[in-house]
């Protein structure tokens, strides 16, 4: 029986040459996917909310609901 001599050297290098590019691309893809599915929509949602936000109107509504301690509703 004459089997071929197995590879004795360069095993780590071969593994790294195969796995490192895959690892880097997958990491970049994961980061990009998170950015464009989570952070960008979230930033847009906040921007849209505050575009039409009237702070004084909201404050008056909250005041009438009676949640503040320093400013009571207009009825009292």
């Amino acid at each position, binding site marked *: 029986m004459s089997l071929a001599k197995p590879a004795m050297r360069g095993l780590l290098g071969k593994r790294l040459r195969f796995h490192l590019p895959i690892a880097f691309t997958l990491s970049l893809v994961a980061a990009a996917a998170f950015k464009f599915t989570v952070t960008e929509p*979230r930033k847009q*949602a*906040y921007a849209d*909310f505050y575009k039409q936000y009237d702070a004084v109107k*909201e404050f008056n*509504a*909250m005041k009438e*609901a*009676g*949640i503040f301690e320093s400013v009571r509703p207009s009825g009292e």
Partner: protein
Amino acid sequence: VCLPACLSLSLSLCLFLSLSLCLSLCLSLSLSLSLYVLDCSLPQYNCRLDTPLPDVPFVRELTNQQRALKEKEKGDWRSLTKEEKLALYRLTHQFSYAEMRQGSSEWKTVLGGVFIMLGFSGLLLWWQRVYVYGPVPRTLTPDWTEKQTQRMIDMRVNPVHGFSAHWDYDRKQWK
């Protein structure tokens, strides 16, 4: 609060009792039988995947037949039959690599036992919940949680994505 402590105390008491029972059984058995005591200062046989050549052969006390086989082994190996070669292998090794690797179905028993004990614990906790625990705090009653929810809506808690984003302030209902 002291009831979980009581439960754990009773469980530990159960374990201690069962352990002491086991120990007493073992002691009684050892007094009646003559146990082989292992001398750990001498080389031992080991059945491991990473050491293919153990320190000592598996079978130490050979019968006459086995001793004759060992004498035959000192000669030309081509004169040995297949059965003799296998017998020599079994003299020096307990399991082959395939037998060492095969594994067992013990995990099913273990998992089954674990689930039985978990289920039993669940039943105990259920009984505790019904017969031992007192009433919930007043902050968890429906009356309080209604007032709490209304206050959260009035405060505009998380208006962008979260709580108040789901409340329609114009129609005064959930979206």
